[in-house]
Structures are given as structure tokens and as C-alpha cells.
């Protein structure tokens, strides 16, 4: 079914201790947000290899939303900080690929922040909707 407006595809990587639990809490509280995000539950945001994010973008995702525990809250001490650094570097790389670095975001979300999760996902979805389809995807699909 063709839609007359752009519906972005967003891949999420959520750490199971905080962000995934916050996503659970958002659901339990019946907080509504756009359905575009498709999340993967991982043990720790520090597990996320930048390659996964690139892969998602190459496979057709218009945005990637990564979330880990708040600083100091990481179940594995500092996995979230490792993730933050990796993603900061990745974003630099994206620019050189001609891709808007806003398409990838890393957020700290604690277990109890269901409403913040919903809010951030909503905002990110709107941002990606505003940026339009990923240019990478177009290239990839036309090849």
C-alpha cells in the first residue's frame, strides 16, 4: 500500500536494563508514540558495534535510535559511556559519507523514564520525518 507521505523506518537498540525497561514502562503506562521505531533488545549499549548502525542504515533504515542507562547507572559499570564515545565517532564518519549525522542518536534513559522514552522517540521520529528518506537508502536501492 502506497502512502502519500513519508513514513520513516527507525531501528532502535535498547539496553535491557534501562532503555528497554523504560520502553516497557512507556507501554505499561499506555503512552502513545509513533510506531516507526523497531527496537532490538541488547544486553548493554556498550555491545553495539557501530557496524550494526551502519548496517541498519544500509539496509534501509532512515534513522537509528540507541539508548543506554544514565551515566553511573550502567549495569556493566560504563558500557553506556563506551557506546556514547563510539557513536560520537560514528557520527563524524557519517558526515563524510554525506549522511546527516542527526539520523543517529544516542540517549541516556533510566528505567523509570517511560514518559521520557515516549517523548524522545516521538521527537526523533518527527526529526527523521523532517529529514526525509535516507539518501543512502536511495543509492542502495537503485544499485
Amino acid at each position, binding site marked *: 500500500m502506497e502512502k502519500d507521505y513519508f513514513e520513516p523506518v527507525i531501528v532502535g537498540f535498547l539496553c535491557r536494563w534501562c532503555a528497554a525497561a523504560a520502553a516497557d514502562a512507556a507501554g505499561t503506562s499506555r503512552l*502513545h508514540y509513533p510506531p516507526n521505531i*523497531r527496537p532490538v533488545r541488547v544486553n548493554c549499549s556498550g555491545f553495539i558495534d*557501530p557496524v550494526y548502525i551502519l548496517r541498519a542504515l544500509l539496509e534501509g533504515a532512515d534513522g537509528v535510535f540507541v539508548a543506554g542507562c544514565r551515566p553511573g547507572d550502567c549495569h556493566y559499570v560504563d558500557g553506556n559511556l563506551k557506546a556514547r564515545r563510539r557513536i560520537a565517532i560514528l557520527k563524524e564518519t557519517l558526515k563524510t559519507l554525506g549522511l546527516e549525522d542527526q539520523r543517529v542518536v544516542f540517549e541516556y534513559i533510566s528505567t523509570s523514564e517511560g514518559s521520557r522514552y515516549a517523548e524522545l522517540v516521538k521527537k526523533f521520529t518527527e526529526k527523521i520525518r523532517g529529514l526525509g528518506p535516507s539518501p543512502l537508502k536511495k543509492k542502495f536501492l537503485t544499485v
Partner: protein
Amino acid sequence: MIKVNERIGVFICHCGLNIAGTVNVEKVAEEISKCKGVVHAEHYIFMCSDPGQEKVRQTIKEKKLDGVIVAACSPDLHEHTFRSAAASAGLNPYRVEIANIREWVAWPHEGKGEEATEKAIKIIDAAIEKLRDNMALLPVEVPVTKKVLVIGGGIAGIQAALDCADAGLDVYLVERGQSIGGKMAQLSETFPTLDCPQCIETPKMTAVAQHPKIHLYAYSEIEDVNGYVGNFKVKIKRKPTFVDWDKCTGCRECMKVCPVKVPSEYERGIADRKAIYISFPQAVPNKAVIDAENCIRMKYGKGCGLCAKNCPSKAITFEGNGSIEEVKVGAIIVATGFDVMGVNSFGEYGYGKYKDVLDALQFERLLAPAGPTSGKVLRPSDGREPKEVVFVQCVGSRDPDNWHPYCSKICCMYIAKQAMLYKHAVPDGQAYVFYIDIRADGKGYEEFVHRAMTEDGVIYLRGKVGKIVEEGDKLRVYGVDTLTGRNVVIDADLVVLATAVEPSKGIDDLARKLRIQLDQDGWLSEAHLKLRPLESLTSGIFIAGAAQYIKDITDTVSQASGAAAKAIALLSRDKLEKEPIVATVDEEVCVGCGNCVSICTYNAVELDPELKVARVNEGLCEGCGACAATCPSGAIQLINNTKKQIFEMITALTRRD
């Protein structure tokens, strides 16, 4: 790894209408049944029910399934349920994956049936992709240290320590203050029975001191925590007391001669203690400490020393005798309790400038028979007996705009008690209570408030107080009674504010050391508010008392015993099963760069000195996967979370129809 000939079964839960009300479960089953390797797809009203689980077991056997997907609620709720069900039908539990289509799909996308259905299919599809390469695993077995650490020596910590010790476990009880006893030891009497804490708590404190299994670390703090369930390593810091506790007999001769007066924490500032002190008469341990910040000798390094001269047992050394000790425990119970806001936060009530505006814990000390006034209610300003006392509830609580959104829960009851005790102390006096709602929801509580109103003639006014102003030697209280619809002015002699209860100071720092979470108000997060209220999300760390949320003594003691029971149950086993989701190394691929060694927080990876390949210690590996993300060659991977699996999941999730 043996690649099995795929026979996957998918079970989609309606969860009543929770899922099926939004997600078209028939369509999901139909679409999913087309996936490669799926030999069975069905939907059912409640998969977690007995008949639901039976369907899973039956189908595994009948259709010889080698993998199961349950599309239902969050894995935090029922992953264990379905893995156990599968195991009992002979399927390895790690060949079961949960797809969360309730919290992540049906609930947040209510009213968007079509999109939700599509998203559910994608999420299940991704779970199938992961499952394909999931290895059948056996749990890693780890030994257990049959000892417990209890943090916090209030009534919660005391109860938990006694229960664990009575079960035969060694207990390390750590209290940061000079004495155990906590807030309860500061109370005058307790609602609704009017027992005095001296009568009911002191025997428990003594029992702690005498129990052969309890190792009390008073005046101590947690320095560092390492390890994991069954095998924690904890560094406890004994703060310097400058007194040799082996010699100190608790005779208090030192306190008699010390010339320095400091507001007493135990008396909540309405009376003084000395620079060398034992918090209160029944203190456990009954040993003195020197407050180095205020002691003349400690400050200037010379002079005074009167306490040492007066000490019959020559216990006072002025030497920094602090130390750090490391203990090993299998479980930790956090019982750090609460603090109470001071009156100086509230500008409309005088910012603490008015001496006769007290917080309720200060008023407890005025009521306490062993308090600074020997239980006589006397105004701090002039020592007169107050004839009219106003109590104000919900000060800083239920006030999201300025302070805390939550209800402090215990105030309705202790204010009724304080008003009642005030009337007992000053029979010709009058007590007024400003309240918004009365919450008296325990056994005998409603009756207790009723008694305050009828027998003791406490006047309850429904409304808040706008401001308090000093008028001569009176406090003019401007309030409202919304029931008559009139503003109320009372010229009071004394005002007591039921200030909000807050998480104990320093809990954020401790939570960080323990790697447990706090909620938005700073209370400890429990694993599940209803079903796992005594556990943190970190296995082996339990929560007791008001650290989780404000509780009265009854609830605190119940929860402390509950947390102790949880710890005892955990440590009753000789070995614990640890998640086998750990890192593994493909030695053929490993180039020995050592990135994984340096990134590992747990020192679980080592480089084989001869072969120059990484080796993982499964006992130490926590399964965070940081090594996998940093490995340049893809040699080190997290079991059942391999690169291939994640890639396949991404492909499934980004697939466009």
C-alpha cells in the same frame, strides 16, 4: 555448533484484549507461518496460563520443535516461564525467544491496528532470525558465598540481619552512624499501638550486638562493591573514631568533660551533643566517637584533651584509626531508609527563622520521655508549655510544582499520634491539624485517627496553610477550612510541619556502587513493583524498608523479613546457575590485539601468552558484550548475540513489503 534442521513453533498471545485488541493476531499468525523454518504458528488468549504453557509443551513434543518463539509481553515478565515450560518438554531453554508485542507494540500503538500488526510481524520475524542461530546452552555454575551484607542499621536492617543470622548465615551489618537504631530510635511512641521504641526496638538492637553470626560495622560506609550474585566482594570503610573501641567501655566520662557543644543529630538539632559522643543512652555499639570537625584537639592538633585525661580505660587515642576491610558475600540487602526535609526549605512558613516552627521529627524529640525535655512539651523559644499547637500536613509532599509529587504516606498517622500525645502531655491544650486528605489504611489506623478526633478532641481542618507569621510571642497561622469555605486564622504557640520524607542522603552514590537503579524521585527501583518488590534488577541485591519507598514500621519490618527470606533462599543453594550468555573467542580468527582485554570491566579476558589469542573466564564474564563491539576481526562474540544474528535481525526489521 550443530546447525539443526529448523522446526520452529511460534505462539502468539492475545493477552486477553491487551494485545488482540490492537494487533490482528490472526493475520500475524498467518504471515509468520510463511516464514522459513516455521512449522507451527498459533494464537491463544493467554499463553502464560496453564493451558497456554501446556500447548507449548505439547506442540514441542508432537511437532518435534527445535525452537520456540513466544510473542507476548516483555521478556522481563515471562521469559523464564516459557523457557522452563520448554525445558520440561525437553527443549533447551536457550532455544526459546520472546518477542515483546505488548509493551512495545500493542499498548503504545492503541488505535493503530494496521501499523501495530505490521510492527508485531517485524519484531517476531527478527526474533526468529535470532533464534535460528541460538545455541543450546547449559547454565554456568558458580559457587556461593553463604554470607550476607546488610547496608543500613535502622529497623529494616536490624530485622533483616537478625533473620539472616538466625538462618545460620554470617551477616555483615554496616551502619554509617555511631549507633544502629535508625529513625525508629528517635521516635517518642509508635502508632497505632503507642508502644515506645525503647520497649520494642532496643531488645532487637541488643540482639544484634550479641548475635554470634552478626558482624556489626558501625560508623562505617560501603567503599566499593565488585562481583556478582553469590560472589560479591565488598570493601567496607571503617571511619576513624579516634577512640580505641576495644578499650572503650561506654562509661561516658569523656562526654561529661568535653567543652564543645554541637547540635545533636539524634535530637535533630533541638539539643546539643558533645564533640566526643555516643548518640543516645541505648546506643549499639555503646562506644564513643570523636567528631573531628568540631573537636578542638583534632582541629588544632593540640590543646584540650580533657576527654583523654578523664577516660578511665585510656581508650582515647586521637589517632586516625580508620581502615578498609574486604568481605565476601553472596547476597546484599539494602536498607538505607529515609530522611526528612527540614523546616528551613519552606519560605511561606518562615524558612526556619521561627524557633517554634518544628518539623515532626523534632517534635518527636520533644514528646519523647527520654528526650531533652524529658517528655515535657516546651517551646524551644522560651521554654513555655504551648497551649495551642497547629500541625500542618503535606508540607513538601503532594506538591509537584515545588517539591515532591508523591504522598509521604506516614504523616497522616504520626500527626494523629503526635496530636494525641501532645494532648496527653498538655491536657488543657488544644491541637489543630490542617490536612488535605486523611490516609489511614492500615490495621487499626482509621480507628486511631478517630480516637484522636473524638477522645482527644483534636480539631481537624480540611485545607492547607498559606503562611505563618510571628506575631509577638505567637505564631499567626493563616489557613483555610475548605469544608466551611472560610479562611482560618489561629494564633498558635507552636507549629509542627509534617515535612516530606525523602530518600536517604547519599543513596545515589551507594546505588552507583551497587549498580542498582533509582526511580525518578530517588527511591530504589524494584525489579517489579507488584511481583518483585524486594529485589533490585541486579540479581543478588535485595531491598528492605523505606529505601524502596516510604513505609511505616509495620511494613518496613515485614519487607525486611521478606528480603531476608529472599537472601536466605538464594544462599540455601550450594551452587548458583549463571546465565551462560558470555563471550567466546574464535581462536582461528583472533589476531591477539588485546583490545578486548583492555576494554573488559571485569578482567574476564586474558591473552594467552604463548598462542597470543584471547581467552574468556566464563565465571567472571558478565555478558555485556563490550569486547565484541571493540574486536576488529569479529573473533570475540557474545554467545547467542553474534554479529550474524544481529545483522539478520536488522535485515528483518528494515524489510519493506
